[in-house]
């Protein structure tokens, strides 16, 4: 039976079914939209680089960048490129790899069932040869070298390397030219078998669809395929100390404008479920109170010339890691890093501004409503939340539960500038 949950205030109804092979399917109908957007996501990303392959006993360590490489290679089979099929069916397809997920997706305004079939079938049919694997290396090398020239990307991964001593989150998702050079077709098959079992995957469909009909269609498609019994993949992560690796990392680059990112490494990275959702929203709210455009800190930083309107901040957490990131372009990147640290310390000592708290909570509620216009946001965020046992539609109720007292406690525990804070700056190189 298909489950059905209504969210009255949002006027949305979500349908769900866990199929016999373990695949979780969610459908959110959006009457009036032209577009249907579907994601098919495996709980497997760049951090999963050490695991016991399905059917074996010993753990293996695989080359950096392999989850992303596998994502690229899924689009090809012996008949060529699956992009061509989606195009013929009037859909646009894509995929992305994050630290913890690999998502395959399409959007289309017609032929929804045909496109769903193409999506399910290509992701559930691996086809790799030595030749196609070698050919892909040239393309991914260009993707890597594009990021090497991108100072924001270098700044972000520089910060992760400064914060993390061992955890694979510090490694670039695409790997390096050297690491992808070592990838073989057998490695790809091994990762595929271990992580692309339907029981490790979730499908989310949002758009102008009839839930019963689409659910039956997917179920039928899955019944026609055979999968081995589900086994939960066993992953290994080296122990990560609480301390950051480096307090300050400087990367010289041939750029005109410097950049600063300050990071705070999560002290309790094993939260899941509603507890994690509450924590994530609390930290985001605190950041907005500290550094948002309505804050005094923002006005002061701007007036003193340390920031421009690229300044931003965010907090994100998954099982095993989480971090706050604050920063932007600056003509004095080191001073900005120092100043941000100071302002965090000052904020912790100040009396809690309840009025600002209530105003910013309203802002977060409005942001969430705006995001509900976006099928992409709904499908991708829902999946991320679901993989961490959270529920996207709990965002507003949890925001409404937050109190000044609960935020105070998050403020004191998360924002530890002594041992958990790192900064990474991009310094313009003077070239001759």
């Amino acid at each position, binding site marked *: 039976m298909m489950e059905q949950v209504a969210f009255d*205030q949002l006027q949305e109804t979500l349908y769900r079914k866990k199929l016999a092979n373990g695949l979780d399917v969610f459908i959110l109908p959006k009457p009036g*939209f032209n577009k249907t957007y579907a994601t098919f996501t495996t709980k497997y990303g760049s951090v999963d680089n050490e695991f016991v392959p399905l059917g074996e006993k010993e753990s293996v360590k695989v080359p950096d960048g392999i989850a992303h490489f596998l994502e690229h290679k899924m689009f090809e089979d012996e008949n060529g490129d699956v992009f061509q099929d989606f195009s013929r069916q009037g859909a646009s397809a894509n995929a992305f790899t994050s630290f913890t997920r690999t998502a395959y997706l399409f959007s289309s305004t017609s032929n929804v069932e045909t496109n769903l079939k193409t999506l399910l079938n290509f992701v559930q049919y691996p086809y790799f040869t030595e030749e196609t694997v070698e050919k892909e290396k040239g393309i991914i090398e*260009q993707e890597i070298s*594009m990021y090497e020239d991108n100072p924001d990307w270098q700044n972000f991964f520089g910060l992760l390397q400064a914060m993390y001593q061992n955890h694979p989150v510090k490694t670039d998702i695409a790997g390096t030219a050297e690491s992808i050079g070592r990838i073989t077709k057998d490695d790809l098959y091994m990762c595929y078998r271990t992580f692309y079992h339907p029981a490790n995957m979730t499908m989310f469909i949002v758009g102008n669809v009839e839930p019963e009909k689409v659910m039956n269609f997917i179920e039928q498609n899955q019944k026609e395929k055979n999968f081995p019994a589900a086994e939960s993949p066993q992953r290994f992560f080296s122990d990560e100390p609480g301390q950051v690796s480096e307090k300050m990392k400087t990367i010289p680059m041939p750029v005109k404008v410097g950049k600063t990112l300050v990071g705070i490494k999560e002290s309790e990275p094993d939260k899941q479920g509603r507890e994690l959702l509450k924590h994530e929203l609390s930290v985001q709210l605190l950041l907005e109170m500290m550094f948002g455009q309505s804050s005094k800190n*923002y*006005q002061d930083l701007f007036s003193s010339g340390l920031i421009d309107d690229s300044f931003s901040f965010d907090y994100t957490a998954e099982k095993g890691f989480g971090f706050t990131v604050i920063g932007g*372009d600056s003509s004095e990147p080191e001073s900005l890093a120092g100043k941000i640290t100071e302002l965090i310390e000052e904020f912790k000592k100040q009396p809690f501004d309840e009025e600002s708290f209530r105003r910013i909570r309203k802002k*977060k509620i409005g942001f969430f409503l705006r995001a509900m*216009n976006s099928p992409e946001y709904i499908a991708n965020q829902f999946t991320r939340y679901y993989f961490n046992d959270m529920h996207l539609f709990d965002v507003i109720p949890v925001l409404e539960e937050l109190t000044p007292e609960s935020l105070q406690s998050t403020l004191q525990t998360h924002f530890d500038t002594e041992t958990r804070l790192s900064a990474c700056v991009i310094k313009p190189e003077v070239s001759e």
Partner: protein
Amino acid sequence: MENVTINSINTHIMPVKTFKTTTFVLQVRTKLSRETVTARALLPSVLERGTEHFPGRQYIQGALEELYGAHLTADVVKKGEHHVITFRIEVANEKFLSDNTPLTGRAVQLLASVLLYPLTENESFPAEAVEEEKRSHRQKIAGIYDDKMRYAGMRLNEEMCRAEAYALPILGFEEDLDNITGASLYEVYKQMLRESVLDLYVVGDVEEEEIKNFVEQYLQVTNNEPVPYSTEGTKESEKPRLVKEEQQIQQAKLHIGYRTGTTFGDKDYFALQVFNSLFGGSPHSKLFVNVREKASLAYYAASRVESHKGLLLVLSGIESDKYEEAVTIIDKQMEDMKSGNFTEEDISQTKAVLKNQILETIDVPRGRIELEYHGAIAGRKIRAEDWVKEIDQVSKEDIVRAASKIVKDTTYFLYGKGGN
């Protein structure tokens, strides 16, 4: 959709039930010119620094937060040689909130406050805010150099259109900033309100009468008399040129500009759209398949159309020593398009992709508005829904005819030290 002129503002109201927010987009359009390009690029950020009612950025931002995080943005773009400053505000529809205080009217008031009642002292913007925004803007201009795809795009544009206004960079020039003062910028602001063509688009689950009343009551633009102007439009291509530049980079950028001889409103415009999608605008395109998939030369290789200037732009990131190989493949794809070396199946596949893109664009308030606004600029009304019909009617003959007018103009190659 209803169109009415209220307080000199061409108001386009599109009631749709699918969105949980209401979006207002005000397009302020004049001719692109060297004299005002930098000042107008700076203007939106100065306007967001304070109004009579909210005398500082923190107060404007605080008011937006009170409106459940209404989202106010202002930016500047060029569409052909039209210079457009866009102000947007998107506000939650109170239907979906547990608190039912009406928000829409207050959002229009806030938009009006930023646009019409800026904080001034003696016919001048406050000097301190102007200086701070100039510094920030200077840094933004400098930062283009650090984003190589954007830098290459800007450089190609500068080189190819060097004798035309279209060459002007949208953020303006660093050297102009020194001479801008609170008083001179205020003059530019007043001139903008006086001379611009104003179009307001409203998308959301709204009552038309209510919106009209809000516009009439709050957005009281006075003395607006748009100056009629014409743009240079398309231009004949001269001899193809090659411009090369060396920088310390890992990945070279190959950007190629063509003149299409076709702009929005022309008979061949939709044929050009189909051409572009098949040539380089989609993942089944000739550029994607041949430059990336077959030759493994690039991660991205794509093309796009500038609708109001009549340009086709190819962009790709390759290794510095692969220039010849990449150009040969790209030229070959263009030749194949011109000689009709593609099938009916290619065409129907391309149309399916394009129609899908258009329908998806209509699902996003801002996308719907962008499509409608093309027609407003060109003075030819084409509804978003009409795009699909027009695309359907394009034949192979039309595509080849549109292709036959395309002429290669400037190739810009940014390469790494030691390469090439």
